[in-house]
């Protein structure tokens, strides 16, 4: 018994029984009962389209990975041939997508219970769990090997470790067992700029470690702000989010603590060789804005949230999205200015 539950009956099941239930659930899913004019086609199951397989790769997460990895690659002091850079970013994106497919394979039961994820390819019956596992494993191997051949072994190792971390450490282990799941699991999303840097330099440095730390420290307040206004979803799925295990007040406290810890990381990155006055100006403004949002959340009660329909939490969540985008965007501007003989300290 591994603590998972059958999403049809809600009873605890062992892994083998769970797989059997997934197959049963897929085979009996109403998605297949589409009206057909040809009687002979009544028993024909739904054929997955390319778009269904693409959806397994979590394209929206992939876009963030591509952006941060590209920044990591472009701000590095060693130039990379454009085509090799393109292939490297493609490999990182495919690797991230592969870990997304493995995550969807493992989490099909809890995805089916959450409004936000019920339409994903496996719970909606468009792709079978076995297909998702196959896509995930094949793309993981493809992306890692191609990155090793195109660039260097350190970058490939970091990519393989990222996939392992997201699929095994986060999805299989932490997500269902601890409310600190996204704190440690957030590391998986923090690796891409470090991989991009390793593609160019073949090494890990203070700069790439701080870029990693920036995303790592940003992830908890970002997700907890989200969890505060979609709390019922995680609760229904049985995922031990901090809001469910320790309550919403404790979550608000955690948000302000992690945001305070994030500030020195963001400002410290500006003092390294890839920082500069523009990055620092952006960092000061965005950290003040994010801190204000976190502080506003900290001061609120559940009654306040109900009264204004979580407007402050939703706003702070949006600020957190701008926060990351503008920090990495500013690093890119600094790199462009340095290239033109300006920028930097």
């Amino acid at each position, binding site marked *: 018994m591994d603590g998972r539950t059958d999403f049809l009956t809600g009873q605890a099941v062992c892994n083998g029984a769970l797989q059997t239930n997934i197959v049963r659930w897929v085979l009996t899913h109403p998605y297949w009962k589409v009206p057909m004019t040809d009687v002979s086609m009544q028993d024909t199951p739904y*054929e997955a389209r*390319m778009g269904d397989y693409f959806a397994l790769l979590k394209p929206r997460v992939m876009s963030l990975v591509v952006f941060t990895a590209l920044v990591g690659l472009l701000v590095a002091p060693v130039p990379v041939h454009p085509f090799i850079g393109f*292939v490297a970013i493609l490999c990182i994106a495919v690797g991230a997508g592969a870990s997304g497919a493995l995550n969807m394979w493992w989490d099909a039961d809890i995805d089916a219970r959450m409004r936000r994820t019920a339409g994903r390819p496996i719970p909606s019956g468009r792709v079978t769990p076995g297909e998702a596992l196959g896509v995930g494993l094949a793309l993981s191997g493809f992306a890692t090997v191609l990155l090793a051949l195109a660039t260097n072994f350190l970058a490939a190792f970091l990519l393989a470790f990222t996939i392992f971390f997201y699929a095994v450490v986060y999805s299989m282990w932490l997500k269902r067992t601890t409310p600190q799941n996204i704190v440690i699991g957030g590391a998986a999303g923090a690796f891409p700029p470090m991989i991009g840097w390793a593609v160019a330099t073949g090494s890990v440095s203070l700069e790439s470690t701080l870029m990693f730390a920036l995303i790592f420290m940003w992830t908890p307040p970002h997700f907890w702000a989200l969890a505060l206004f979609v709390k019922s979803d995680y609760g229904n799925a049985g995922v031990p989010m901090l809001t469910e295990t320790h309550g919403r007040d404790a979550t608000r406290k955690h948000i302000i603590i992690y945001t305070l810890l994030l500030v020195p990381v963001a400002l410290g990155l500006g003092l390294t060789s890839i920082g500069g006055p523009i990055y620092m100006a952006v960092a000061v403004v965005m950290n003040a804005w994010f801190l204000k949002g976190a502080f506003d959340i900290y001061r609120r009660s559940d009654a306040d949230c109900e009264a204004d329909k979580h407007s402050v939490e939703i706003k702070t969540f949006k600020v957190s999205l701008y926060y990351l985008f503008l920090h990495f965007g500013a690093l890119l501007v600094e790199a462009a200015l340095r290239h033109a003989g300006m920028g930097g300290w």
Partner: protein
Amino acid sequence: MAIKVEHELHARRKGRNIGVFLLLAGFIAIVFGLTVVKVLQLGEASQFEKFDHVARPQIVPEEEVTQ
């Protein structure tokens, strides 16, 4: 009587087949492109050019040619 060559399965899987074709074509393009870039990064071709199973008079050292 007309012979229907195309099974309905072909029509149903058309999109998937086109997708697989594009993926394979893209993979070939990537491997080809990487090969070209990696070879060009080796520098001046004459520095590492060898016979490659065929006599290449243009890279035979001058003393051997005069003998």
